[in-house]
């Protein structure tokens, strides 16, 4: 069986799924279904950090404490490891993130440490693509060693 194409999702992609943003859901649904299928061609990855960011960002969005029932359902998002692989932070990712931050200074980017950790995690898992809705990160495409793109279904792989 050929290796699956590894796609990294930034936290804002997961939050878009939790928010149920209508014009984004069809693509996100298709990618998640592909990743979770036994015969799928991709595998979705994200950092352990995303779990914290999504829960906290939802609270910020609503300006109130997250309803425990909603929080529990958001937690379900991370449980199906056949569809979603969570990558924990460790030393090698930290060193790569540091390199990205150094590079960002020389190029005049405004790369924050959390951005750098997400990008470094994608690099660590040898991601074919980093998918995000963040315009600023889209500009870093290829400078970080892989394309940074808005979520899209890979050509020829539409379900």
């Amino acid at each position, binding site marked *: 069986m050929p290796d699956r194409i590894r796609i990294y999702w*930034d*936290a*804002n*992609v997961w*939050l*878009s*799924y*939790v*928010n*149920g*943003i209508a014009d984004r*859901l069809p693509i996100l*649904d298709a990618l*998640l279904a592909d990743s*979770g299928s036994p015969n799928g061609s991709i595998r979705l990855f994200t950092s352990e950090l995303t779990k914290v*960011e999504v829960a*906290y*960002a*939802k609270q*910020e*969005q*609503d300006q109130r404490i*997250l309803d425990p029932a*909603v929080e529990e*359902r*958001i*937690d*379900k*998002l*991370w*449980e*199906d*490891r*056949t*569809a*979603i*692989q*969570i*990558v*924990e932070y*460790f*030393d*090698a*990712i930290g060193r790569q993130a540091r390199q990205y931050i150094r590079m960002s200074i020389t190029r005049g980017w405004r790369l*924050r440490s*959390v*951005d750098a950790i997400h990008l470094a995690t994608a690099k*660590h*898992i040898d991601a074919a693509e980093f998918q*995000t*809705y*963040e*315009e*600023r990160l889209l500009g870093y495409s290829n400078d970080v060693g892989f394309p940074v793109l808005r979520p899209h279904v890979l050509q020829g792989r539409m379900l």
Partner: protein
Amino acid sequence: MAKDTLTLALNGEVPFDEYSDAISHLRALVNALSVELGVADSVEWFIHDLHTGSAVSTIRGESEKPEATERVIDAYTNVARALQVGNPPAYGVPVVRAAIAITRILNSRITSIRFETADEDIVITSTSTVAISETVRTALGAVEGRVQTLTERKSLRFILYDDLHDRAVSCYVREDQQETMRDWWGKRAIVEGEVSREIDSGSPIAVRKITRVQTLSEVERGSYLSARAVAPMRPGSPLPEEVIRRLRDA
């Protein structure tokens, strides 16, 4: 902690011939150490487990005198430490010959050799006589995977298969954790403790001083659907990328 296993792992693309040679040299090394330490008649060695991925071979010593097994395992660590810094091991000729033969397996395809015991991982990446830098780093952490190998015999080691890095990770338990191990077999689990990782790849190699093993319930496929549109945006609230950016820039 009682020690009864030692492991030799070859990393890279391992041809069968070289694997066979390495095992033969490992056998010669263990035999030579046992003879030199005067315990050859009291320890019998068995295959404990074999894993592909990085050609991991573990053997287990059984003896009426557990300390005899431990002496061989400690000597195995000493040999590896000497090899790592390019020194000949401080043992007799048969030991030195077998040890050096193992390092000669290194080539363009077998990129490193790992000597592992319950105490330590020693990675050798070159036959150079120049001391090499640190290749394994240890930190408190956790590894998630599936518990794959628990032998019927009493053992203080099990294998956790890490899907992310496609690697078998050796987990060394304390004697008081041994009974609980039975409940972990075949389950997905998060093992917390002192995690050794290869510096370059970040791949976990071993977990020691285990503080917690959390078994995970089997999750129904598609459980992520529970979170789909579970928390819609309220009118006027920022888009996901805006709120995440705000948090990161704060």
